[in-house]
């Protein structure tokens, strides 16, 4: 009796019982423990997912590899894994991948750096942000649209360009003349356009971080603008830009659909850059998958594994290049593509958070608008290039006059030599040219898609499927594909957002030590993951491994893998922007950590998180490659993504499955589907950025 009485009459101390300090409150502790357990669990789940995926890829590749009678790494002959005996190797494919990506990087890197210089150093300050968005929009255009534009617009135009190149360089064997068009060179050009925005975005962030004192030191020495860039901006940005270029290279290696559509593939070892033929690892997966049997699928998975390892190494290399603090810049640049107000927003945002947090600034809120944030980036962007060019030219003339007129001894205030002036103007002019060069494809794509796609885009198109519609027959539409796109992207969002948010909260609020570093590393890995590899993951794990069906849900799973890193990264950036003063204010009131996060931190960061999620949705909606692998394509309506007996169409797969048709009616539908896809994606992008802009302080 005496042993029981105390517990019965006096149960364990109630929360906060006995007036003890709230920190000792066991209820609070339990809440914190549960919450931190949940976010940590999400982080660990992510690692398990990556581990399982890798294991299943290796496991699936194993069978095909052991059956293979050729050396998988060096064999350059025809891809024939389903023959008896199986014979396949990635020699020629890897070479083709390397060649196209190198062509892409050679073209894209200088243009992208020029674009970044133009936006950060030359463009008028007010315009700079808008110009940055325009380049970012290039990144939002889905691969399938690039492919469509490439095959129907670029390929014919590349014939002329190829002719010119072979006229000049034809004496070199790689540039030998022949049939031009669907060559690795054309594929490289398409890839260049596709990776340009990412290199430009990262370089832009890097250049914006140039320490102001370096810029001033250069100017104080009497440097022209271009000389200042050479003295301060470029040396400072060297490693960041290098890493941006390597990351762009990694993107080019993994790009699938655009190459598959543009390149006239053949299993040769490419040596003639301007002539058709060649193939890449990624394109080969997309093209061979439909006709692959069991060993064939295993062989494709094996090649995907190689692609995965190579992009992994390339991404790792990119990170190595910017060891010292560069990582943050590069991540910010990557982030810039998938978020949020863009440059210059962070500072005012912090300022506002600080203001709300401390309220002590109440009297001097107006001081928020004075200068500091503005000065940071657009330091020398006082006038536009045309102005500068005119200015510098006029300056020269005027100075000569002034020098003579004032009879200045020793030409003390004589302008820098004509050559220096000229160089500076030339450099400015060149950056404008690179910007124009970068925007031309965007304008051309939009023009082509709108002009070809608009007349078949009507209510019937939105409300009918392609069931029983012949290629030659007008009518029909993409109702079935809209359903598929919305359901798959929606399911992917439903899965990616909670997991992604939890992981982001873990990384920002709890993450310390080994686990956090590992998770961060794998998020970076996922960020650079080729989308076709995400498809292979789900194929080997979910469909082949767990015996699930190739339906809309499998597609959603693949999209989730692509969306997760975007959600994590952008939420992380937003959570980091919430100043510690807010958290401390909340702790000081005795609010436990988990409630502080739920009630203070997350709501404060919410607009930015929503923006990041929307940009992620826009990104995965346009995905083609993974869907080709894990969702069967059908022409009729299927509203049930879990239906195991039939697949589901999406807008990108409709385009992919119809673009080769020679028939007018079908072509019209392809373009209308493209227009619809672009409209949806642009709309999501614009709304997402508007939310960020709307929530930006000083905009009330």
């Amino acid at each position, binding site marked *: 009796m005496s042993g029981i009485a105390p517990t019965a009459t006096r149960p364990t101390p109630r929360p906060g019982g006995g007036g003890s300090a709230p920190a000792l409150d066991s209820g609070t502790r339990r809440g914190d423990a549960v919450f931190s357990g949940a976010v940590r669990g999400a982080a660990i789940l992510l690692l398990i997912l990556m581990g399982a995926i890798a294991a299943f890829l290796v496991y699936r590749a194993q069978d095909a590899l052991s059956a293979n009678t050729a050396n998988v790494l060096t064999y350059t002959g025809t891809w024939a894994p389903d023959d008896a005996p199986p014979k396949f190797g990635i020699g020629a494919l890897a070479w083709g991948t390397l060649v196209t990506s190198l062509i892409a990087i050679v073209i894209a890197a200088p243009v992208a750096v020029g674009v970044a210089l133009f936006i950060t150093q030359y463009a008028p*300050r007010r315009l700079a942000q808008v110009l940055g968005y325009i380049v970012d929009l290039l990144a939002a255009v889905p691969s399938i649209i690039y492919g469509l534009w490439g095959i129907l617009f670029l390929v014919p135009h590349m014939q002329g360009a190829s002719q010119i190149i072979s006229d000049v360089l034809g004496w070199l064997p790689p540039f030998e003349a022949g049939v031009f068009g669907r060559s690795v060179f054309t594929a490289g050009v398409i890839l260049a356009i596709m990776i340009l925005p990412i290199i430009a975005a990262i370089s832009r962030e890097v250049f914006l971080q140039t*320490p102001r*004192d*370096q*810029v*001033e*030191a*250069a*100017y*104080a*020495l*009497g*440097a*022209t603008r271009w*000389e200042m860039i050479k*003295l*301060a901006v470029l*040396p*400072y940005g*060297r490693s960041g830009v290098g890493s941006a270029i390597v990351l762009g290279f990694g993107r080019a290696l993994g790009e699938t659909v655009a190459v598959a559509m543009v390149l006239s593939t053949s299993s040769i070892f490419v040596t003639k850059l301007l002539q058709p033929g060649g193939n890449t690892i990624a394109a080969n997966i997309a093209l061979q998958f439909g006709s692959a049997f069991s060993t064939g699928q295993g062989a494709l998975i094996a090649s995907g594994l190689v692609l995965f390892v190579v992009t992994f190494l390339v991404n790792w290399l990119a990170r190595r290049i910017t060891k010292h603090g560069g990582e943050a810049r590069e991540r910010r640049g990557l982030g810039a593509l998938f978020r949020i107000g863009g440059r210059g927003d962070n500072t005012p945002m912090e300022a506002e958070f600080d203001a709300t947090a401390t309220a002590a600034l109440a009297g001097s809120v107006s001081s928020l608008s*004075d*200068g500091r944030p*503005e*000065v940071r980036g*657009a*330091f*020398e*962007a*006082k006038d536009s290039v045309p102005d500068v060019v005119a200015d510098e030219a006029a*300056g*020269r*003339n*005027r*100075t000569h*006059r*002034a020098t003579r007129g*004032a009879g*200045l001894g*020793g030409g*003390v*205030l*004589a*302008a*820098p*030599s004509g*050559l*220096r002036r000229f160089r500076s103007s030339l450099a400015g002019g060149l950056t404008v040219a690179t910007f124009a060069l970068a925007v031309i494809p965007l304008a051309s794509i939009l023009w082509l898609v709108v002009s070809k796609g608009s007349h078949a885009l009507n209510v019937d198109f939105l409300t009918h499927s392609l069931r029983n519609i012949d290629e030659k027959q007008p009518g029909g539409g993409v109702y079935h594909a809209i359903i598929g796109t919305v359901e798959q992207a929606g399911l992917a969002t439903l899965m990616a957002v909670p997991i992604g948010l939890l992981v982001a909260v873990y990384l920002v609020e709890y993450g310390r030590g080994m686990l956090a570093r590992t998770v961060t590393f794998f998020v970076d890995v996922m960020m650079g993951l080729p989308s076709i590899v995400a498809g292979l993951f789900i194929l080997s794990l979910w469909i082949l491994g767990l015996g699930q069906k190739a339906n809309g849900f499998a597609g959603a799973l693949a999209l989730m893998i692509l969306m997760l890193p975007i959600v994590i990264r952008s939420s992380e950036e937003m959570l980091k922007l919430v100043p510690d003063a807010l958290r401390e204010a909340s702790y000081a009131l005795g609010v436990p950590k988990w409630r502080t996060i739920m009630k203070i931190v997350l709501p404060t960061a919410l607009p930015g998180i929503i923006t990041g999620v929307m940009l992620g949705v826009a990104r995965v909606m346009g995905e083609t490659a993974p869907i080709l692998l894990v969702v069967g394509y059908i022409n009729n309506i299927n509203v049930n993504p879990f239906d195991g007996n039939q697949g589901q169409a999406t807008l990108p797969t409709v385009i992919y499955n119809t673009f080769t048709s020679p028939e007018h009616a079908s072509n019209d539908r392809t373009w209308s589907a493209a227009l619809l896809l672009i409209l949806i994606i642009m709309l999501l992008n614009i709304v997402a950025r508007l939310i960020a802009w709307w929530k930006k302080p000083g905009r009330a």
Partner: protein
Amino acid sequence: MAKRIDVAGLSAYYGPTRAIEDISMTIEPRTVTAFIGPSGCGKSTFLRTLNRMHEVIPGARVEGKVTLDDVDLYGTGVDPVAVRRSIGMVFQRPNPFPTMSIYENVAAGLRLAGVKKRSELDDVVESSLKGANLWKEVENRLKKPGSGLSGGQQQRLCIARAIAVSPDVLLMDEPCSALDPISTTAIEDLISQLKSEFTIVIVTHNMQQAARVSDRTAFFNISGTGTPGRLIEIDDTSRIFANPTEKATEDYITGRFG
């Protein structure tokens, strides 16, 4: 080739805000002129209008007149790049170019001006480093990065970099505020030596420093937050510290204010 600066009715703006208002003064050649005054009164802003560094800030502009030996620095036809070449500047925080060696840092301005001859560069680098009292310390490591020097050495490197292009005027914005007392003494000695060749303007918060190194002192003040800074008076340093004309100057110097 020290030169005289004349300023008349100068105001400077950051966007719509006027930071300094109606400043007129003469800065004599081969003297050291010190600018003192409370924080935010516009000393740096004014200093930067003298070599047209002010206008590199977006939205910033200047009204009024600055002449360098009768040449209007803001006149049409005058090139800011050329102005900055003849009026050098040393900043509060030492800012050597981190990717360049000590030698290249000093040679940077000359290289910009198109000097290519190795022997000429060698000569100027040596004489400038000597002029900045840094030669002995770095003689044997000219090829090492400038960022490897101590703060005080870096600041002297920046001074060497500024005097290497043989400017007419040297502007210094709190050049010692990031330095320890020994480095500060080294720079103060250097300033006293340099004034035989250059016109020197120095912004400082250190009253003793102004008294020690300058011949003339200008006192700036603001009447309240948000109002533009003004020049209260400029006079011989001995007079400003012993017997200023304005009450505000006396209050500031004796520590009753600011």
